């Protein structure tokens, strides 16, 4: 085990008494409680942590936060393995195992690094240009490319953790727990607002944790701790740490993910993360800012990092990120980093500044320490491949757009970059917030928005600590006031002492010094300044297209460090201003969110609701195989020992045709219709007439959409003077109910009609077959079942097996049939009563597959099976159901030119040589291979026991005219074809004799 050679002896937010062991790429190391994986690696002198995406160049830790483009790691193994985590965000725990992603066989020797040697062959748009054409070769390249350019590996085992979700309301949501956010929460809390303060770090403090700055006489960290104490005492303030607000949606709806056990290694079985859904009255965004790098040749070597990151490693983690440092900047903030590095014992060789005359307070302090400041100089290269060994500097020329002679080399193992700051405006922009470009600060700042949001601190382009404190406090007070709370009185503001900061001079890119040099803009996706310059030369103008063509900003880091340079370079190359070019669109999530957190507890059995009938347990015990029909579990068939599906379905069909069968039809949609205008209403909803339906009679109805296409069907019965009972298809129940309510409420509010969904209140058993009446008569009381007093399409009320029941004489099988409905809680009792009395008739339970065969033999349509939303009643040959005496929904559409064109697909039967799959395409002119003109398709196909052959239902162009014609159904490219004869869809008992017995 190696010692932590780069660890400072004192200070920082780590606990040196708590040693944690971890491994990285198979080697063991030690770190301390409070470390991230990145800080612990740096403490151990590990500089090379990964390989870049395209060229597989060696890369080191570049940042100290979520913007990290290089240090992506795979954490853990097996079920708990997680890919592409930023080492800078992984809190260290004892036993942590991590490995670099995107390198093979090892980070030190990476075969794909050969890409770097041939980088001129891999320019922007490389994939599109080289591999997507010719298209037929793509799938051959793809395998190789994916392996070469892949990132981490997704775990293949089920997630072992629990995830939670919570909804919450608050008056003021403060996002970001740095100086501005804390100040806002304090002020809003003091005003009595219900506040949620959220921060992605383990503790409050934000930038104060890493920059070592003081507030009045206290350290920033102590100030944050005191604030936390005060906030904790406020009963209406809720603080969430390790929580990232990642999505900001309209009307102040914010999604956040809280990490509860990741920092402990997320042991199996623990609650790992919680998804918060917040609706806030007011939002204060204090999301801080992200530092930008500088762009020059070979600016990606391990040992190069953001200046602010270096400062954070020193102050927060007690780690020297190098021994000899050079800083390269265009603004003052790098000088503060230089100061802190020097204080920590790092030898600071020089600060290279592109500005001609840097003058801020921080600059003077560095000069006074005797550290060399090379003003009006620029970096043109670095030395070292797997580890930085030095840098190359040139003075800028008079115009500042090129270089003077006189290359200087400086030795260093740490290079800190500061290209200015980008306010973290992602959340602000997500719901449509506009951004303004601030020329003075050279960054985009929040502008107009429609949300109730105030942006404070660095996120608002205010980079001084005093400004953040004051701005945050003002935002907190304003937000509280907007919720209607009284101002608590005198503001508890701190005296504002403006620090003397010199202005920034952005130098986005300088010309290359030598040919082929790589000036990286997007470190993660290996996009260089030359790639962007090339894209604009090739004609790209829109930043959105440049992004997709070059892939700049499209990695897991979303280009947090590189996007501003990318757009500035595009603007510069096109001769346009930065605001003219504009930014790409900011979309949620701000940082990646595990699917587990999105799913929460809605996994496994809870992924989707399962609806079961009252008789489900009996079906299960009887060995039923179930089919999912919308959310319902319906018995599909009941195989007996030794039976396959075909054998079982055949037996069930024969039982229904020759004996008696029982089916659980409880899933049918059921709607009670009451009110004096019910018949008038049904006349408008259904295609056929309802005025003359007598009490005690049932009628089949067809429902159309206003476009004239069949939407649903079912039997509706008249139970009383103003009382009807409608059934719908199982899958259509909710949709039909909503449709009917819609018309009643929005168009026909004058009708006195009341609808109640009773699908789940009734259990319905369907008895059908020649012996159906005999079985039922053994159980029915008070109902005359004789055909003359209880005809087909009639309804009676009485008792069955002693249970109050509605008995409908209806049939979907073509045999004598009764549907018996009882209160749902009696469903199983009724079913069992039928099993008892049915024994002597060999009453056979049948599933929906047999029912489908039986109804197909009769040519009865199954809506959604034989129809698909483009089928009219005429197409189905059901014009007889369409009344010409009244208006109804969809009627006018039946006369549209498209509805009456003669070449529509029409519903027919097919006599087949062999079984064909449903959905099979039908042709009239068979050719050796496609293309062939398709004239229709098979909608239902079954083996019919009653007919002793395969039958199908189909929709075929001009089908009704084609009776007797032979068509072909090509099934494979190898030429397997089934011939079919077009016939009437009614295969069995066309006169309907069997129904009227």
């Amino acid at each position, binding site marked *: 085990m190696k010692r932590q050679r780069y660890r400072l002896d004192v200070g920082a937010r780590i606990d040196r008494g708590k040693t944690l062991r971890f491994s990285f790429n198979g080697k063991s190391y030690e770190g301390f409680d409070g470390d991230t994986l990145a800080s612990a690696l740096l403490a151990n002198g590990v500089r090379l942590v990964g390989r870049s995406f395209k060229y597989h160049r060696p890369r080191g830790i570049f940042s100290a936060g979520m913007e990290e483009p290089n240090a992506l790691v795979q954490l853990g193994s097996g079920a708990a393995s997680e890919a592409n985590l930023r080492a800078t965000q992984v809190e260290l725990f004892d036993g942590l195992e991590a490995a670099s992603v995107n390198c093979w066989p090892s980070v030190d020797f990476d075969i794909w690094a050969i890409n770097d040697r041939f980088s001129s062959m891999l320019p922007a748009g490389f994939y599109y240009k080289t591999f997507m054409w010719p298209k037929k070769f793509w799938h051959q390249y793809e395998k190789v490319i994916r392996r070469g350019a892949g990132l981490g590996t997704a775990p293949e085992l089920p997630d072992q953790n629990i995830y939670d979700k919570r909804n919450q309301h608050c008056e003021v949501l403060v996002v970001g727990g740095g100086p501005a956010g804390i100040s806002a929460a304090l002020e809003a809390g003091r005003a009595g607002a219900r506040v949620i303060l959220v921060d992605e770090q383990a503790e409050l403090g934000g930038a104060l944790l890493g920059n070592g700055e003081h507030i009045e006489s206290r350290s920033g960290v102590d100030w944050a701790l005191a604030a936390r104490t005060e906030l904790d005492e406020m009963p209406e303030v809720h603080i969430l740490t390790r929580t990232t607000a990642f999505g900001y949606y309209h009307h102040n709806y914010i999604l956040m993910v809280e990490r509860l056990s990741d920092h402990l290694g997320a042991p199996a079985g623990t609650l790992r993360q919680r998804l918060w859904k917040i609706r806030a009255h007011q939002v204060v965004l204090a999301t801080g800012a992200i530092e930008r790098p500088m762009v020059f040749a070979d600016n990606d070597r391990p040992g190069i990092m953001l200046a602010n990151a270096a400062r954070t490693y020193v102050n927060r983690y007690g780690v020297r990120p190098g021994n000899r440092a050079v800083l390269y900047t265009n603004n003052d903030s790098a000088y503060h980093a230089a100061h802190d590095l020097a204080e920590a014992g790092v030898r600071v060789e020089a600060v290279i500044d592109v500005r001609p005359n840097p003058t801020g307070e921080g600059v003077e302090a560095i000069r006074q320490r005797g550290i060399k400041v090379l003003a009006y100089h620029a970096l043109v290269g670095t030395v070292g491949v797997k580890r930085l060994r030095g840098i190359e500097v040139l003075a800028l020329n008079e115009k500042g757009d090129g270089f003077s002679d006189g290359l200087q080399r400086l030795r260093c193992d740490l290079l800190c970059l500061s290209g200015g700051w980008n306010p973290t405006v992602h959340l602000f922009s997500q719901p449509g917030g506009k951004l303004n470009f601030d020329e003075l600060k050279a960054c985009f700042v929040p502008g107009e928005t429609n949300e109730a949001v105030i942006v404070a601190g660095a996120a608002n382009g205010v980079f001084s600590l005093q400004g953040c404190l004051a701005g945050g406090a003002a935002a907190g007070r304003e937000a509280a006031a907007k919720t209607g709370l009284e101002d608590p009185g005198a503001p508890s503001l701190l005296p504002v002492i403006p620090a003397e900061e010199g202005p920034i001079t952005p130098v986005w890119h300088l010309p290359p010094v030598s040919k082929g040099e790589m000036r990286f803009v997007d470190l993660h996706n290996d996009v260089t300044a030359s790639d962007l310059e090339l894209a604009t030369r090739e004609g790209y103008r829109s930043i959105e297209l440049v992004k997709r063509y070059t892939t700049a900003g499209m990695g897991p880091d979303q280009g947090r460090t590189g996007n501003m340079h990318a757009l500035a370079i595009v603007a510069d190359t096109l001769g346009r201003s930065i605001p003219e070019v504009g930014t790409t669109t900011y979309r949620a999530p701000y940082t990646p969110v595990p699917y587990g957190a999105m799913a929460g507890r809605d996994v496994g059995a809870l992924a989707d609701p399962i609806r079961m009938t009252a008789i489900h347990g009996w079906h299960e015990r009887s060995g039923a195989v179930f089919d999912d029909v919308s959310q319902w579990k319906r018995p599909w068939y009941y195989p007996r020992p030794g039976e396959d599906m075909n054998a079982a379905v055949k037996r069930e069909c024969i039982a229904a045709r020759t004996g008696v069968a029982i089916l659980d039809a409880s899933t049918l949609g059921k709607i009670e219709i009451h009110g004096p205008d019910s018949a008038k209403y049904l006349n408008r909803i259904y295609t056929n007439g309802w005025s003359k339906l007598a009490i005690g009679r049932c009628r089949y109805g067809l429902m159309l959409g206003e476009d004239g296409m069949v939407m649903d069907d079912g039997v509706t019965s008249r139970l009383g003077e103003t009382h009807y009972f409608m059934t719908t298809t199982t899958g259509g129940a909710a949709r039909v109910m909503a449709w009917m309510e819609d018309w009643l*409420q929005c168009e026909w509010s004058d009708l006195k009609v009341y609808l109640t969904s009773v699908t789940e209140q009734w259990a319905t058993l369907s008895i059908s077959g020649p012996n159906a009446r005999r079985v039922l008569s053994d159980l029915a009381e008070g109902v005359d079942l004789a055909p003359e007093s209880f005809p087909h399409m009639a309804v009676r009320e009485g008792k069955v097996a002693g249970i109050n029941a509605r008995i409908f004489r209806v049939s979907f099988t073509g045999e004598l049939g009764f549907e018996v409905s009882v209160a749902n809680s009696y469903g199983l009792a009724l079913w069992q009563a039928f099993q008892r009395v049915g024994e002597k008739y060999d009453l056979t339970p049948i599933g929906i597959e047999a029912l489908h065969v039986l109804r197909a033999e009769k040519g009865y349509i199954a809506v959604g099976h034989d129809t698909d939303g483009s089928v009219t009643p005429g197409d189905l040959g059901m014009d007889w159901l369409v009344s010409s005496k009244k208006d109804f929904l969809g009627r006018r559409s039946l006369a549209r030119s498209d509805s009456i064109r003669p070449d529509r697909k029409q519903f027919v039967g097919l006599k087949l040589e062999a079984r064909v799959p449903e959905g099979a395409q039908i042709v009239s002119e068979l050719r050796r291979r496609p293309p062939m003109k398709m004239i229709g398709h098979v909608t239902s196909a079954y083996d019919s026991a009653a007919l002793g052959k395969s039958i199908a239902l189909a929709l075929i162009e001009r089908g009704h005219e084609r009776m007797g014609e032979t068509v072909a159904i090509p099934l494979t490219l190898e030429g397997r074809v089934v011939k079919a004869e077009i016939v009437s869809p009614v295969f069995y008992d066309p006169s309907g004799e069997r129904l009227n017995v």
Partner: protein
Amino acid sequence: MLLIDCPYCGPREEIEFSYGGEAHIERPKQPDKLSDAEWADYLFMRNNPKGPLAERWCHSYGCRRWFNVERHTVTHEIQRVYKMGEPRGGEEGT
């Protein structure tokens, strides 16, 4: 994710509602008198303004009542919520 103020229940999350498209489209009283083009206009054609739009919403997972919402299609600001049958805002009637 909108926060919609149901006129019967008060403000509720968007997921409790279903959308019904443009409001104030009255079903023609005598469809048979319309040409195909006029019927198609009622059936298919909807305004798609960049700005305020009167649209129908139903509180499906609440009171199941339909009502009208005037929403700005760019900012998603809900300018008005009113019951079925009430006239739209501004100069026009129903």
